[in-house]
């Protein structure tokens, strides 16, 4: 399997009044086509990890390589190009642009990447169909439900056929039923070969939908479990791990 994402001895320390450790000597490889969940409580470093993979932040030490591209030496403009060409990002609070229609929101990354208008429109409409919101193309985000907005966000993230799809707490702002629907969509997208890295604090969700769950605590990898039937690991095992760590 090709390695899509490679973190090697990555540390991130935030300078401030007292130095805060975001990540501490983390090494991680995520192969192409895998649906990996990064799990941990608040402050564990999971968002830091996602930001480093997205090139939104730079590590204090170590290297981050995504789809063969080492992010360390890239300028801001190069990182922007990297994000628009190789990444798709889904945020917890959707972050759609309210003054653009659904279709225009989805087209935005394609236009930034220079995709031809006709091609981009066809791709966007195709995604809207796949995600079951084709009739919402002309609507504005304020008129959509939370689930519909997140679908739009997923479509926007996929329009450029990214190497990696990053999802930061994609169900955090949704009710449980809607959240499950969104995760079902991500699983379906993953079945098509899309590499997905999802950040979540919810162990149950992580185990139920991801093929691999990386648990972080205090900036370090606590556990790295493949969620395959043959591994013997289960949701209840992950829940136990969580309870034990919470009690410490």
């Amino acid at each position, binding site marked *: 399997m090709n390695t899509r994402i490679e973190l090697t001895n990555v540390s991130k320390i935030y300078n401030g009044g007292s130095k805060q450790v975001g990540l501490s000597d983390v090494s991680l490889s995520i192969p192409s086509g895998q649906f990996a969940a990064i799990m941990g409580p608040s402050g564990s470093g999971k*968002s830091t990890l996602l*930001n480093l993979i*997205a090139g*939104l*932040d730079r590590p204090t030490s170590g290297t981050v390589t995504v789809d063969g591209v080492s992010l360390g030496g890239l300028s*801001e*403009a190069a990182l*922007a*190009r*990297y*994000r*628009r*060409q190789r*990444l798709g*990002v889904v*945020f*917890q*609070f959707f*972050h759609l*642009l*309210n*003054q*653009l*229609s659904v279709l225009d929101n989805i087209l*935005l*990354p394609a*236009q*930034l*990447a220079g995709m031809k*208008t006709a091609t981009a429109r066809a791709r966007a409409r195709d995604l809207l169909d796949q995600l079951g919101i084709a009739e919402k193309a002309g609507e*504005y985000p*304020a008129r959509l439900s939370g689930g519909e907005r997140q679908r739009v966000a997923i479509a*926007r993230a996929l329009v450029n056929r990214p190497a990696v799809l990053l999802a930061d707490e994609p169900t955090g702002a949704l009710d449980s039923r809607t959240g499950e629907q969104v995760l079902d969509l991500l699983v379906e997208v993953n079945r098509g070969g899309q590499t997905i890295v999802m950040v979540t604090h919810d162990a149950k969700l992580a185990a139920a939908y991801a093929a691999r769950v990386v648990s972080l605590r205090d900036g370090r990898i606590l556990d790295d479990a493949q969620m395959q039937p043959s591994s013997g690991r289960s949701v209840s095992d992950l829940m136990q791990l969580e309870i034990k760590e919470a009690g410490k």
Partner: protein
Amino acid sequence: MKALLTKILGDLRRRRVQAIVIFIIVTLTAGVGTLGIEVLNGSSAPFDQAFNQQAGAHLQVAFDGRVVTPDQLAATTTLPDVTASAGPWPGSILPFANGTAKVLLRVLGRADPGGPVDRLQIVAGHWATQSGEIVLTRSFAEASQLSVGSQLTAISRLDKPTLTVVGEVTDIDEADASLQSLQYAWVAPSQVAGLLGPSDHVDYVMLFRFRQAATAADLQQDTQEIEGALPPHAVANTLTYLVVKQIFTVNSTIILGFLLAFAAFALGAVVLIIANVVTGAVLASYREIGIIKALGFTPGQVVLTFVGQMLIPTLAGCIIGAPIGVLGSIPILNSSYQALNLPATTLVSPLLALFTTIGILVVVSLFATFPALRAGLLKPVAAITKGTAPGPQRRSLLSALLQRLHLPRPLSVGAGDAFARPLRGLLTALAVLIAVATLTFAFGLQSSFQKVTAIPGFFARPDVSITRYGAYPDSTLMQTLQAQPETARVVTYTFDSAIVSGLSSPVSAEPMRGSSAADGYLVSQGRWFSGPGEAVGGLAFVQEAHLKVGDRLIATVNNHPLQLRLVGIYYDVVNFGRDLRFDWSSYLEANPTVQPTFYSITLRPGADFQAYAQRVSASAPDFLSVQPRPAGTPPFVALANAIILVLALVLAVIAVAGVFNTVLLNTRERTQDIATLKALGMSPGQVVGMVVSSACVLGLLGGILGIPLGIWLHRTLLDLTTSAIGDPLPAAFYQGAFDNLAILALLALGGILAALLGGALPARSAARRSVVEVLRAE
């Protein structure tokens, strides 16, 4: 109160960039506004003050000594409306030599400087009491580099008597020598006869004060009563104090018009910016407003928090700007005050600076209160729940249009955001519009000044000016001039006065010989005269005499009626439009032996003015005053240009500040959107482009609309200003003022330039802001 102050100061610290912007633009506005009001107050006050102190003459009358005697003139002193009179003083207009320079002075024989009318102030030396002594006005002495002890030679007589300057005075009945070329000079009464040449005659000058003299109509009636008490054609010339005051204040009036206009523009732009700031602050602070209301702030106190944030930097700006305005007014007023021996510092009023400050604070309060009322009326729960004001949720037609034009997406997104907050966008566009209109207006003014200075008579001078004195023959001088190879054209003229039916007093008449049509006079109706029997008139004369182009008139010159036909109306700068010019051949009917006094010489291209003047002067040094055209810009025009430039720059700074403020508010409001776009792959450069394009839309809109407004302002303000000095510009003057399309395009682009300058810093800041920090803060 303490809680309110704490909140206000805390908010000011948080919005210190905007507070500094407001401080700067208010400082500029307060400075310009105070300057304008000080000049307004000071421009006529000193004249009125000195006029009352010195018992100035409401009316000065020169009587023809060949028609009337001093005994006959005594009858005028007992007319019902006369409250005081002085004279008759014998005198004449006589030529003098001051070294190689020659000058004309109206010499009067006056026994003492005091009296019931026109009390002269001696500022140097003493009064002339003996033969051989002469007293001059201070402004003339300074302009001619004379002082007590200097000598002047009377060249009207062959024996050329010499007079010694024994004193200098200030005379409220005369304007400064730079504005009124024929000045009085005083000698002992017994001296007058000894100065007259063979062709000179004695005139008598009397000065009058009346019960009713507030208006030109009052003075016209008084003049008619004087004429009625004397033989026909006794009155040779009159001058009212209203005209003298007009001359005295003309410079100040012109500058004042511009200052007040600019101050109004600046204040307008400032309040638009402040309204914008407060609107933006309210929209961005919903949650905070809800919280402070929940804590116990009343709606009025909430409003005061926003108004207070504007008043503090405004007050600071006024404290700095108003005194600067007061200090700046002193040199502008000083030139006029000096002529009246009044120190300028006593005529500026610090109280006016206080009134200006209060006025600005009131206006700012009003414009800050209206948008702040929204904050006061917010329901606390709704405000806390919403957190921020509802964002724009409608499609931007502009963005869609620009997208169709295949503009890069960041630019079309940014441009579409220009009116995402319609009121904010509109206020900003208006601020830019005002600035572009002001720049357009300033450009028009500069061209207009250049045009005015090209009009013969006041600022414009011919290549060489010659004044002929005494009995030196005109024919000899003309031969000398024609013999010079550089001579291209000679126009001669003299000053006289004409009595025309319907006029309250004689009008200035200038018969001309030569191709005067080519001199560059601005003809607004009809054409320049081209032969005997034809005349052109200034607008004030034509209106007063109820004439129109084509009418016939009888102008009595030297007691001889001349039959003339009015063929044109022209713009006269010397006599405020009360002027009549006609062909020399017509003048000879009234004065068969008269010879011209003044010669305007136009030289061929490339000629050396100085060398020519020296050569001609050397041909008859005792009888000719030959002056080449001075180099450089007239001082008043240079001053006006400098003031216009500074004021235009002030407005430009205000416009840039307005755009800066709007872009800052927009980027702060769109922080999350911008972070999202960066996360999606928008590069820092594209973020800058997006933000700046939004500003450029506003700048372009303001620029395009500002041009026609500026053109209209130029015409309107010049009309008002020149009407205020009694000499409105004709419509023909404005033709071609804005014909240069390249310049107009540049002015329109000035709006975009203001947008680029104002938007650059906030755009760069937005591009650099960390995405992680923004998206983490939910």
